């Protein structure tokens, strides 16, 4: 009989049973999770995997049966993914993100955070100085639609009114705030996304946003309302502006490690540092969400200046504390 003399046929006949057993286990584990395997099977799995792997290696060099080689390739890959997967449940994964990954990712980009804060403050100071000097500069920094009547020609009374909601207005305002929340979070996300364009647009975006804030401050300062504006801004701004700055820093981190990949090659550097940056940006989405809620509710409900300052500053301290001291120890013990 021919089959007795074809070596690859004998090779297959001797091992086939183990392959099918491995396939059966993998199939069940893929479908319903590792729990469906008995303890003997769990013990057997790595051995069967190693066996299939070595079969594959041999089959590639001696067998011309395409189906067998392709089958082994697929089987080995499936078993590999099963054995080399992190068996974290969704809950554990999210908990790990909040408790560990996010604060450590923020700490990892601290140099970029310094840069983004510096650029933002630079924009703020420049615009503040210019508008104080000459109010005509105001609309160079703040677009008409964003200003919404808050302009140099407005009277002190008009500006003051904008800072404290009248009871009748409250209803419309909070839906508006939720809308605004999406606006500002988009600025943040964009600052991050533009980091891929080697970071320069990110710096520009941070600078212009700082300038916009500076122009606002200068306008209210010239009308003697700086303290009141501060309260209006800080209650959600401490969260929101921090998030914009973090997004910008994350974008800069991507750009930096793409331009200077260091000991990695570019793709590896992007994969390693980009992952951290994206986690920071994801944290920022949550922060923008919190800021939106603060803007929609807290600002309408809290109208006393010092309470606004107290809330805003307390939140800021909480964020800083979380990012500084959170997740110093890896809870699961395995690296990213």
């Amino acid at each position, binding site marked *: 009989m021919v089959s007795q003399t074809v070596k690859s046929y004998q090779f297959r006949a001797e091992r086939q049973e183990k392959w099918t057993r491995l396939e059966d286990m993998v199939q069940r584990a893929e479908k319903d999770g590792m729990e469906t395997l008995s303890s003997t099977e769990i013990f057997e799995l790595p051995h069967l995997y190693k066996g299939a792997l070595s079969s594959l290696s041999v089959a590639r060099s001696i067998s011309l049966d395409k189906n067998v080689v392709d089958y082994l390739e697929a089987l080995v890959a499936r078993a590999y993914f099963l054995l080399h997967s992190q068996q974290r449940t969704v809950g554990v994964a999210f908990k790990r993100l909040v408790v560990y990954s996010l604060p450590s990712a923020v700490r990892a980009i601290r140099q970029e955070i310094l840069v983004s804060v510096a650029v933002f403050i630079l924009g703020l100071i420049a615009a503040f100085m210019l508008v104080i000097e000459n109010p005509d500069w105001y609309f160079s920094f703040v677009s008409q639609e964003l200003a919404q009547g808050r302009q140099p020609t407005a009277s002190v009374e008009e500006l003051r009114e904008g800072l404290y909601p009248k009871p009748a207005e409250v209803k419309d305002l909070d839906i508006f705030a939720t809308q605004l929340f999406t606006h500002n979070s988009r600025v943040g996300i964009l600052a991050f996304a533009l980091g891929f364009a080697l970071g320069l647009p990110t710096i520009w975006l941070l600078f212009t946003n700082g300038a916009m804030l500076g122009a606002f401050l200068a306008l209210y300062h010239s009308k003697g309302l700086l303290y009141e504006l501060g309260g209006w801004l800080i209650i959600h701004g401490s969260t929101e502006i921090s998030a914009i700055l973090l997004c910008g820093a994350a974008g800069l981190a991507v750009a930096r490690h793409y331009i200077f990949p260091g000991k990695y090659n570019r793709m590896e550097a992007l994969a390693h540092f*980009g992952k951290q940056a994206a986690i920071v940006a994801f944290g920022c989405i949550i922060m923008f969400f919190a800021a939106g809620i603060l803007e929609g509710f807290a600002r309408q409900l809290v109208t006393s200046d010092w309470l606004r300052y107290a809330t805003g500053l307390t939140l800021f301290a909480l964020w800083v504390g979380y990012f500084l001291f959170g997740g110093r120890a890896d809870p699961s013990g395995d690296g990213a």
Partner: protein
Amino acid sequence: MKKRKDKQTKRPLNVKNLREIMTPEGVPMRLELGERGDRAGAVMIDLAIMFGCIIASAVAIGLIFGFSGLGRLGLILILLAAFFFRNFYFMFFELRWQGQTPGKRRMGLKVIDRFGRPLSSEAVFARNMMREIEIFIPMGIVLSGNAVGVSGLMQLFAFIWVLTLVCLPMMNKDNLRAGDLIAGTMVVREPRILLATDMVEKTERDTNLKAPEFVFTQKHLAAYGVYELQTLETLLRNTSPEGQNKRAVAGRAIMKKIGWVDPVPTGKLDVFLTAYYQVLRKKLEGQLLMGKRKQDKFDNTK
């Protein structure tokens, strides 16, 4: 579920799309990249499910509060529901199903780590966070014109940039989107190939020959290499009527090439081809053991 598997096994492997990942054991593992069309299909399915969920939850909230008096609390709850589905739908499934979402399961795709490490939860968060930029911002631009949150020249710049990110999978050989790039992931076709009967064994069972009906000489066998052998294998495994025709054409071509003189009756064609396959495979595998691999019919190195 079953339907998908059949589709998978029938589609031939595309050699150009194979990528190697080195296992810790030192044996490279070959995986086929997910095709762009399949991935687009998977995203469409997922987005449809996601918007379905958002609409369903909006209707549910509407029912609870009463549509007429929906009020601001109802609206805020709907916005919240939309926020959660949009941000967590993909993350939830990719974490739970080890790199698959309902859409990816349907299309037979899977997310893996590009460097062969386990797919970490961090990578899943990172690659799906990027969807905000790759899907939702462009969608906002199409729907409302100004969804990037900036104006003037910056808006144009942002628009061009977002467009570039969206088109990124078309611009690299691994079909990586921005999310894959920064998370260090890659989307591959779910490996799923069934073990078929060995052609050698099949012949024996089918024909049950005592003495070989066709005898081939060395000259007959020298005509072809591994590539032709495996093409013949694929042809012989094809049981459709179309395969019958292909075999008839291939059979004539082979007989002409090897100079087979005796006419083979039409009913015996398959027997002839399997017999030829068997002997050719035995010969080529014998050469393999001696370290000689005749790649195809043009490979005539001694």
